[in-house]
């Protein structure tokens, strides 16, 4: 088998006609690969740009919730309703005031936590009792609101390619979320060199788990260990799917149709 050394490649192309053809093909392929890589990188940059240019998280979330929940009703001529544009204004003001409410509640919460610790434990307050309090609190978080990718995953932990999102580790996950998932099982899965992939195919995102270097959908798989992983980390997997769909702005058909049925 011939080994092509990059620096001498031009000499090899001139040496023989058949080889020349062969190496021209190789160079064409290299060009194609380079083009694909460039396309992928430019694609990532575009997505990053879209993400950075977006409104702050809470503004986007409130805008989304207004669209989902609020409707404008009209009474009058149908013709007028069809020709005129009906909109809802004031979401920025709503967010501004909502932030004030949140800040007030945060201050009140700080007081109540301190009071609770003082009167419940007094001088007996120790690491164990604090851990118990944290455990009780984390069970209430992330239940009702869909988290954003940056809430759960650090950019260092996942990779976004043209049609694939790969989650490689949970190292930078916030501690409160770590407690919420079955972190020991999940992190062991990643420590063993496995990862979780989402691949865009036929208009929907599919979840792939690695199995000895090969990827396959595990949704219909009979392999117990993957079902076990999903079963033990269903909130995590569901949030991963939600978060990645949010990241790429694509509706997650898998989450709606398949995953819910098996969980």
């Amino acid at each position, binding site marked *: 088998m011939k080994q092509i050394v990059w620096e001498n490649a031009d000499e090899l192309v001139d040496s023989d006609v058949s080889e020349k053809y062969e190496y021209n093909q190789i160079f064409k392929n290299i060009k194609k690969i380079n083009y694909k890589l460039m396309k992928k990188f430019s694609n990532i940059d575009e997505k990053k740009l879209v993400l950075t240019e977006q409104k702050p998280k*809470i503004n986007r*979330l*409130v805008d989304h*919730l*207004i669209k*989902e*929940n*609020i*409707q*404008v*009703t*009209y*009474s*009058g001529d149908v013709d007028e309703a069809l020709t*005129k*544009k*009906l*909109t*809802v*204004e*004031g*979401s920025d*003001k*709503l967010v501004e*005031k*909502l932030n004030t*409410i*949140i800040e*007030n*509640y*945060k*201050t*009140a*919460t*700080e*007081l109540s*936590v*301190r*009071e609770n*610790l*003082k009167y419940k434990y007094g001088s007996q*307050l120790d*690491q164990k009792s*604090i*851990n118990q*309090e*944290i455990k009780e*609190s*984390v069970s*209430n*978080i*992330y239940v*009702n*609101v869909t988290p954003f990718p940056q809430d759960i995953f650090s950019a260092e932990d996942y990779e976004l390619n043209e049609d694939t999102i790969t989650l490689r580790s949970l190292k930078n996950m916030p*501690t*409160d979320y770590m407690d919420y998932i079955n972190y020991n099982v999940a992190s062991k899965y990643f420590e063993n060199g496995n990862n979780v992939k989402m691949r865009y195919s036929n208009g929907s995102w599919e979840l792939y788990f690695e199995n000895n270097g090969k990827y396959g959908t595990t949704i219909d798989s009979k392999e117990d260990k993957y079902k076990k992983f999903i079963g033990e980390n269903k909130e995590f997997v569901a949030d991963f799917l939600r978060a990645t769909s949010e990241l790429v702005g694509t509706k997650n058909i898998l989450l709606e149709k398949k995953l819910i049925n098996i969980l």
Partner: protein
Amino acid sequence: MKKFTDSINEKQNHYSGDQKLYNEIYNLIEETLTPKMDGKDSERISLIGKESLVNELSKIVQNEITRTKIQILESFKTTPNLIQENIEVKDELFDMVNETNRLGKC
């Protein structure tokens, strides 16, 4: 005088009295969101679905409350000296909450 104020507040409450957060958010929506027709106000248009929006927004606030609670507990965990300082800080916070409540009523 107090009773009169209470009766006005009751009229403004869309939810029962113990659902303070829900009432606050409902009033906020009433104050800020307005329907427009071609960018203009009109008596013939109105908003529906405020209750479900209240429900969703209150989840955001509740989650922030829980996050704050966890952050404080974690700060105690990482800095044990904070336990000793708890009493003094608590008194300061108590004053802040009272002040916030007083301003909110004005």
